[in-house]
């Protein structure tokens, strides 16, 4: 048992940490999908741009100014994207909006490529959370430890917001029935903007945690975390915030374990010939997506809705 613990613990620790960061991105996906029925492909790239904001601003101002400013700028970016790229297409077929989202993602990546010159940008060290800490004999960064707690705290705050405030009620109403809520006098444009603001803010926080852990930002940094966070949202049942968070932790931990699967098996099975299973660390997430879509399209906590599948 002790051996089991000591072999698996480092993988699970890093899995929880990655999972928490995916969760913060996944909330943005799940909220937007819940309300607009739109897969916001650009969300992962917003997360990447938040990383770049930090890289460029940390050089010229102290961190306690830079960090809130990054969140403000990211929120502004998310807000603008919605106004420019999605709002004009509100009555268009869903496919057009999704293509627009792909276009925005393409644009953000190319802008980042132009601005960075295509080079890897080193993320600044954030004091304390980038420092090392010992947990049960495994060494890791503080950010690994605080990520899950911070994530859960933010999620609780968000759930309270949705369940106990007026704007939260409006959000639930719009998610339930777009047309009717409009007839009931809800200003849906404000509600949608609010959704993008919350999603982008969480993505900015997620980017700080993620890039503190993996301190390199490239134009494609957001693509994979974005897709995986989206899978997490589908896994948990799209539209459901707790579902997205649980999905993100499951995916983060599984991914980390698969990268170490050969080592883990060889620790318990003598004479095991490595199967190079680490190749499937990304593919596993997508295999999970397909299985969920085919067998339980509403995900773990999703509500039954006929128009989804």
């Amino acid at each position: 048992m002790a051996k089991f613990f000591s072999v698996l613990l480092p993988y699970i620790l890093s899995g929880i940490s990655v999972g928490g960061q995916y969760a913060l991105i996944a909330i943005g996906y799940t909220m937007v999908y819940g309300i607009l029925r739109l897969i916001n492909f650009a969300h992962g790239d917003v997360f990447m741009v938040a990383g770049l904001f930090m890289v460029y601003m940390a050089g010229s101002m102290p961190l306690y100014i830079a960090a809130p400013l990054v969140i403000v700028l990211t929120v502004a970016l998310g807000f603008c994207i919605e106004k420019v790229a999605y709002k004009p297409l509100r009555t268009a077929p869903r496919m057009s909006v999704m293509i627009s989202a792909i276009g925005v993602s393409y644009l953000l990546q190319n802008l980042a490529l132009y601005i960075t010159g295509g080079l890897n940008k080193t993320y600044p060290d954030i004091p304390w959370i980038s420092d090392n800490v010992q947990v049960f004999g495994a060494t890791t960064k503080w950010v690994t430890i605080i990520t899950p707690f911070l994530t859960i705290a933010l999620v609780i705050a968000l759930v309270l917001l949705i369940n106990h405030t007026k704007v939260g009620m409006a959000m639930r109403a719009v998610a339930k029935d777009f047309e009717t809520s409009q007839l009931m006098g809800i200003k849906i444009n404000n509600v949608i903007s609010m959704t993008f603001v919350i999603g982008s803010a969480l993505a900015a926080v997620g980017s700080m945690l993620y890039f503190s852990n993996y301190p390199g930002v490239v134009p494609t940094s957001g693509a994979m975390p974005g897709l995986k966070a989206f899978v997490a949202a589908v896994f948990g049942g799209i539209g459901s915030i707790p579902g997205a968070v649980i999905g993100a932790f499951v995916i983060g931990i599984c991914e980390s374990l698969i990268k170490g699967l050969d080592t883990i098996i060889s620790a318990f099975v003598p004479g095991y010939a490595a199967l190079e299973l680490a190749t499937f660390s990304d593919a596993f997430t997508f295999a999970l997506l397909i299985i969920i879509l085919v067998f339980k399209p509403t995900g773990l906590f999703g509500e039954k809705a006929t128009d989804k599948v």
Partner: protein
Amino acid sequence: MQKKKNHGKTFAGLVAIVCFLAVVLVLDQIIQPTDSMAMLLKVLQKASVYALAAVSLNLLTGFTGLFSLGHAGFMLIGAYTYAIFTIEPLQRDVVYQYYDAAIRVSFPQMLAQHLGGLGTVLGVILAILLAGAVAALLGWLIGLPVLRLKSDYLAIATLGFAEVIRAVFQWGKLGPVTNGSNPLKSFVRINSFKLTLGGTTLSLSTFVPVLLAVVCIAVIVLLINSSYGRAFKAIRENEIAAEAMGINLARHKMLAFCTSSFFAGVAGAGMAMVLGIAQANNFKSAMTYEILLMVVLGGIGSVTGSVIGATLFIAASEWWLRGLDSGTFLGINAPDIFRNGFRLVVFSIVIMIVVLFFRRGIMGDKELPDLFRRRKKTPSKAKGGQSHG
């Protein structure tokens, strides 16, 4: 929609295509690789492959209303199948340097032993057909579970499948077949296509991919104009109504999906031929997005639109806008602005403008010949999308 068959128009179209092929053949002879116009040939080669890919994607999204994002995966399968079965036998062990190659069949070489030069050609055709067939088979397998899904759920499921396929092809344990994650090369590529008549050698390096695209797109057009094509369009417009009219939804969707996969596989084979290298890493979801943007640029639901969209996309990104990256564009020298990556920024802004303001793309759902036809009614303009306040 289709009025009476106009044989004169069809004939004119055929003549135009033959003339175009003849021009390509001539260009192939007079432009040398060191000429400054050599870029034109490179663009034609690449554009023809992408045009085929775009048309095959359009068959799904534009004509059947199935939104699939798995195209890169099918192209990957086509590229690998083609490459594996045409690798030069003497080079096989050099290519599979870390593995013991399991498949040791080279169609062109095998058939050339019996039929000479004709055998080489047949071998290449056989490999291309096999590339399409394997892709179509996989399309069928994937289609079984996912075609029940709708709209964006179908899109992400196919996207997921493409990523899984890419990982499987990079798996080290499949190395004897796929060469692991390492590139396949030394197979028959476009520069191998030469025709010796008497004493003169004709270069066919651009003609062959263009011909391949023309033939395949012609087949797709025939399918679209058949009763199957009308069924596809009915499904696109309204699934429930189509089913009520007696169209077997599952069967027709599967047919569209497999046909699209087949031609995506052929396009993948073409891609391998043009690039001279086949590697799983090149077939990322970004490639699917690019093809989708070509379709949107040309107009969803227009075959000629997709061809024009793909050609413009490739020509602009590979050739015309190159100056934006290297300091001088249209005679303006501004190295601080026109530096690496600016081309792609300009390009993506243009695409966003098309997506937002010219949603019907260049052609809408019209075909090129429609534009020559005299019409009383002007084509309806793109509808603005803002009824909400």
